[in-house]
């Protein structure tokens, strides 16, 4: 097996892109990624592509990517794995390049959630994630899906609404500097806690937006990486984990076993542990979920997520900055693009070029949890050089 490098990364600004279709978003992200390659890369050098998209927009996804980006001569595979789609698309490309089948591969993630009204999108997603007879008609929309976990988590560990609100305040503050972020405004604890309720215990400012967006990575084998850059970022660990699909079957809802399984695999592959991570982009679709992620990823002990955010450790100035891009909460959440965009941020962080640069960041971690909280993905990246 060979090591795999990321040599280029790009994304279009996330937002409600009503005026831009998927066939324009995809070439936008691919062009940004190609333009970011230090020594240049021609489109024709790409040998294969993986395309992560949660919901089909404007028809057959693999074909839409190839057709819109001028990539008809290479194989294209669509990956769909709920909100873990982006990091899973990267994982599959890493296996193909690491296994020696290709030297240069493109990984694209995109989704167009605002092609329909927010309420209609919730029903569409329930159709993707719920048992048709038992759960679908009950209205377990995406925020309720996570709120059932967070409500129990708060109950068992005494997590407060204020601790959850701190996640929103932190991630919004980080997004202000990020020109690619969907929500670039600061907020206060008071505003978060007084915001209209969506699904208790979440107010609207505890929730990530429904965004449109696309992001792309160019990955290569060790053998050809230096042809493209002197500063590659190395993919050291990839992990995917799953869990029971019905909430009634999740024995302990204060944790996401899909995350712990994914993280265990990724840490083992990278040969490092949580204490080694310098910067992380984690799945903060709802504020309380970021606190649970701290625990599932090993950044703190069980039940300590509230105290970790209070300590300031996960702020930009802290010992382990989390979501310097603004996270899903403020950068935005087009599910297929989300995991890829996390790696775009880490690519910049590990090359010292991020807008909210974490000094000396060497190890980065990207994480998704999604679907009926039944799939998690973790990617661990390392900067070049010791």
């Amino acid at each position, binding site marked *: 097996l060979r090591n795999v490098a990321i040599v280029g990364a790009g994304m279009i600004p996330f937002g409600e892109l009503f005026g831009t279709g998927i066939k324009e978003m995809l070439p936008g992200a691919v062009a940004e990624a190609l333009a970011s390659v230090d020594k240049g890369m021609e489109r024709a050098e790409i040998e294969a592509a993986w395309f992560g998209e949660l919901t089909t927009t404007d028809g057959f996804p693999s074909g839409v990517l190839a057709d819109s980006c001028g990539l008809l001569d290479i194989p294209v595979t669509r990956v769909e794995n709920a909100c873990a789609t982006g990091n899973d698309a990267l994982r599959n490309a890493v296996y193909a390049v690491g296994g020696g089948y290709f030297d240069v591969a493109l990984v694209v993630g995109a989704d167009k959630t605002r092609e329909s009204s927010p*309420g*209609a999108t*919730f*029903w569409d997603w329930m*159709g993707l994630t719920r*048992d*048709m*007879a*038992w*759960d*679908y*008609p*009950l*209205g*377990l*929309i995406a*925020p*309720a899906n996570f*709120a*059932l*976990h967070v*409500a*129990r988590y708060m*109950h068992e560990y005494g997590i407060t609404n204020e601790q959850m609100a701190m996640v929103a305040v932190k991630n919004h503050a980080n997004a202000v500097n990020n020109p690619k972020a969907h929500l670039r405004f600061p907020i206060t604890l008071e505003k978060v806690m007084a915001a*209209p*309720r*969506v*699904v*208790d*215990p979440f107010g609207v400012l505890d929730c990530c937006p429904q965004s449109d967006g696309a992001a792309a990575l160019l990955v290569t084998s060790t053998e050809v990486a230096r042809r493209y850059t002197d500063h590659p970022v190395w993919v050291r660990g990839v992990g995917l984990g799953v869990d029971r699909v*019905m*909430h*009634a*079957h999740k024995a302990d*809802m204060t944790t996401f076993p899909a995350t712990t399984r994914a993280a265990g695999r990724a840490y083992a592959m990278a040969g490092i542990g949580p204490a080694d991570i310098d910067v992380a982009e984690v799945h903060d679709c709802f504020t309380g979920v970021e606190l649970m992620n701290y625990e599932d990823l090993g950044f703190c002990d069980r039940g300590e997520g509230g105290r970790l955010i209070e300590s300031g450790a996960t702020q930009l100035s802290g010992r382990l900055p989390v979501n310097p891009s603004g996270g899903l909460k403020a950068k935005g959440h087009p599910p297929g693009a989300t995991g890829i965009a996390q790696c775009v941020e880490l690519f910049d962080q590990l090359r010292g070029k991020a807008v909210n640069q974490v000094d000396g960041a060497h190890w980065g971690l990207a994480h998704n949890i999604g679907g009926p909280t039944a799939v998690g993905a973790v990617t661990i990246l390392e900067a070049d050089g010791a």
Partner: protein
Amino acid sequence: MESSFGALATYRPCWTDASGGLAAGPDEDVVTMAVAVARAVLNGDPVRHVALVSRQSIPAVGRAAIASALNLSETAVVETVAGGAVSLVDALLASEPGSLVIGVEVGPQPSAAAVITRGGTGVSAAGHAEHGLPAGGSGGRHDDPRFIRERAWRPLLEALDRDRKAVAITGIPPRAIRELADDRRLVESPDLDGAPAPLFAAAAMLAADVTGKLVALEGGSGAAFELRELGWPVTRLQRHETVQLPAPPSVAAEIAISLSAYERAFEAKVGLKAARCDCGELSLPPRSHCLKCGRQNATRLVAIPHAGEVYSVVTVRVPLPGLSVPYSIAIVSIDETPLRLLSPVTDARAGSVAIGRRGELVLRRLATREGIPDYGYAFQPTEAVAS
């Protein structure tokens, strides 16, 4: 004709409409109200025949839903009768011992009542009368309350009163009952009409220790029975706290259904039954592959307890097409089993139920999907004991 009461139960919903009157809940219909009241009179004795009497139309899946929810044997018959109070009295007097007779009214005076009949002479027929008047109270230009009262109900009552005056008049609107009663003393009974009314009146007679004649009127027909024995158990299902009916969904939307998925799930979902593997492992929804021992298709459906406790609960407040908000949805740990069920919270104000609350899983119409009622179990919190 003679019969005897075994046990009797009455049910009234806890919801209120804009005028403050009791109303059927948004998740209640003739089937769910029939099941609610029937469960209160069943004590494990085998039931061979169920007669469900209602003026409302009963959904096509209604009989199957009742058979599943009451866990009836395969040979039991569920019969539906379109009719009101007279039809109910007829069904009661004609029933064999061990029959379950249920009356349901979903309309403006929603209520349900059920009785298990036994052999004996506790209740005996006391007359039947027909009048040639095609009065049906169907509304519109033929709906003339004084005409119907004077030319149908008064002559019917006089005919049925012949030997002995009734102490209960039931089945017709409460106002007409008061007008026909003149100065006679009637047993005090809730203002109800329709099929359940005679059983509510019988329950009132039992509560007041009053024997005597009960008259049921319905359109151009009348029937009477004599309650001759007292002392049968009566269960009264009515919650102390009322709950305002939610506004209908702000945006109407069809909730999709797969008939195949609906049919596969029906027996377990409507009957609240888990699969028990030969190794003892329970699964809900039923699994064909046992996760404990690995056997395939070695399971059978078993009824599980309805009591449970909230493991987690959230309240959805954001508008959603096709659903009334706010609504609470819970994960309920089912007593005596390792099982949990995702259930909407019912018969309580949204947001009023917390983790740890105890309650019952009750059959409700969880949704109407492309016109088909989707029955399943909602969580009804136990009420604090009234002080």
